[in-house]
């Protein structure tokens, strides 16, 4: 059972939207903006409140790649693998991040819940390829060594 605070937050978000199925995606986006993931209980709760079935809400939420039911790390690193970044070797950036964070294949979040690593298909900053973002802050013209430096800085800031 989720803490009461989650439902209160959900009520607050719900009150800013119209009741109806077209509000589902915006509401889920708002919830995710707060928690960086969607607690499953809240999906059912929201479905009931806006008058759609749980199954329907689940089918929509799982269709879109941006929605996640898994908790994410405090820092979400997105590595762009759009065409421009790909031809400028974004795979080396991703490789280095996985090495630095000691993440095996198929695992995206570190055990200490500090980092989540994702790839995105294009951030639209192709002029600065290869690009990655840390919590939506754009880091342009990345190199593997800049990755090491960036991660080191975040870890140091966290330890202070």
């Amino acid at each position, binding site marked *: 059972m989720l803490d009461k605070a989650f439902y209160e937050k959900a009520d607050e978000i719900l009150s800013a939207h119209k009741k*109806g*199925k*077209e*509000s*589902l*995606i*915006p509401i*889920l*986006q708002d919830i995710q903006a707060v928690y960086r993931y969607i607690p499953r209980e809240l999906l059912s709760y929201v479905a009931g409140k806006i008058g*759609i079935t749980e199954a329907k809400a689940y*089918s*929509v939420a799982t*269709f*879109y*790649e*941006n*929605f996640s039911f898994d908790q994410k790390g405090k820092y979400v690193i997105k590595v762009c*693998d*759009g*065409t*421009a970044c*790909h*031809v*400028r070797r974004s795979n080396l950036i991703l490789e280095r991040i996985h090495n630095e964070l000691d993440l095996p294949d198929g695992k995206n979040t570190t055990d200490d819940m500090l980092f989540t690593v994702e790839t*995105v*298909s*294009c*951030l*639209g*900053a*192709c*002029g*600065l*390829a290869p*690009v990655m973002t840390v919590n*939506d*802050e*754009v*880091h*342009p013209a990345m190199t593997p060594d800049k990755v090491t430096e960036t991660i080191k800085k975040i870890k140091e800031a966290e330890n202070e």
Partner: protein
Amino acid sequence: MNKLKTRKDLTDIRAQAQKRIADIGCRILICAGTGCLAGGSQKIYEKMCELCGKSPGAEIVFSPEAAHDTHTTDVQKSGCHGFCEMGPLVRIEPYNYLYIKVKPEDCEEIYNTTVIGGKPVERLLYSIDGVKYPAQEDIPFYAGQMRLVLKNCGRIGAEHIEEALAFDGYKALEKALFTMTPEEVVNVIYDSGLRGRGGGGFQTGYKWKQVARQPEKIRYVVCNGDEGDPGAFMDRSVMEGDPHKMLEGMIIAGYAVGASEGYIYVRAEYPLAVSRLKTAISQAMDAGLLGDDILGTGFSFRIHINKGAGAFVCGEGSALTASIEGERGMPRTKPPRTVEQGLFGKPTVLNNVETYANVPMIIQNGSDWFHSIGTEKSPGTKAFAVTGSINNTGLIEVPMGTTLREIIYDIGGGIKGGKKFKAVQIGGPSGGCLISTDLDDPLDFDSLSRKGAMIGSGGLVVMDEDTCMVEVARFFMNFTQNESCGKCVPCREGTMRMLEILEDIVHGRGTEDQLALLEELGNAIKDTALCGLGKSASLPVLSTLKVFRDEYLEHVRDKKCRTGTCKALSSYVISPSLCRGCSKCARNCPVGAITGELRSPYTIDQSKCIKCGACAGNCAFGAISLA
């Protein structure tokens, strides 16, 4: 801003906005597009504001108290200037100096030398081949362009409606509302021959006509800002740099087809575009250019923003409207078409960002003017995002019919590192490849579709001799396969099979028979898939198979990748002359494939090697390479 209630209110406020600009002695425009912001332009903006005695983000006021002398300098955050490679960019008017790669430390010198002294800071100017270019317009990157849609991007403050008004913003809306009937507006767009800039190249005016004549009276205007093609960012730049132009286009569309509500569907990956649009919409609402009874004409129009949630297929019309309705973003069979039954089952005008941004200038200047630009069947200009292996990456706008050579060599400054041009991938995952023999052919909708490519949304990714075309085809197939929504079998299963074959080929397991199978599958998917995503999914493969067949053959026959990109087809070797026998590689090798004796050259057992590259990355003598 006070609400504008009449046409005169609008012309008065525009006159004030223009006077304000005219009174400014020196205007500093700092690029605040995504690229330059990432390069630190916010700090430059703040520093410049401090030097000029302005408060960052201050509202623009026209009150008499804001006397002229306080207006001698003006600092604005503008949209993308397009020359992203050289960012952060700062433009200074009236001199039109463009400073490149500016750092916050440079601000003081800029202030003293240029703002106070009126002289350029030489070291911040763009120079090439020993020539310095003080004025932005003379730089070869800009000189070869024709910026109409992007005219104001980089020239106006992107967060103030007063700036847009001073640069003729909402002038076309004024003309449409007060001097034209809705039918006349539709006819001008129809006669202009404007074609959709989002990919399909369908006649915009034809869509508007269709919607306008539907019996159903509730209609919608929808803007597709779901710019999902990897390597494309022109719509983002318009939304970030000149949001009012696009809103104006949508409002005019609403007036023309009798709609009172509009929706903008923007990718969630574009947070800055979303926030600039929100600002612009609330400013237009406050000014009375959106909302009820616009300028006292009785015409009402509202615009909502919907954020995408990470599904490429939502760039397809019926999937996009489904997503706004709160459904899974899956395309449906047509007919009925979107113009008959689109959003919420009502007649809907659906165009993309760049298309709407073309509307105001067509209304202003007329359809004949529009026909004077571009080619006969593809009038107007097109914005392209030029990226990849090219010297001047960035955003450009040229008349339709411009050749690839002009774009790559004159504007783009040629191939990076003096390498050899190999191909241009145009239109992203739905597009195809153009090669050196296509360099001198004019680019427009029809010439490209004849070549099996398409203009798509306008992403141009330049590739040099080091790019493996088979790997590029695999990359795009992987993208579309991932993004296939799964509704129709040809796309769901077909792209999967094609991807498997391409994986085989790049991993050295491919056979010559598979090439024929790839072609057969590709054509079948093209003919039978439900929506545009599926129909064009195989184009990158079919196009590379045609143009670069020899490379495919090398991969399957000789098990060779000439660029060394496909690791499975090349092997790591230790150069005996460079190896000092330190044993580091042998200790690093995770599979024990490297053996040897200390102080004599080591060797790699190719049958054990998994090509992880751990040896090469750690060799202190550079003795290990991929061959």
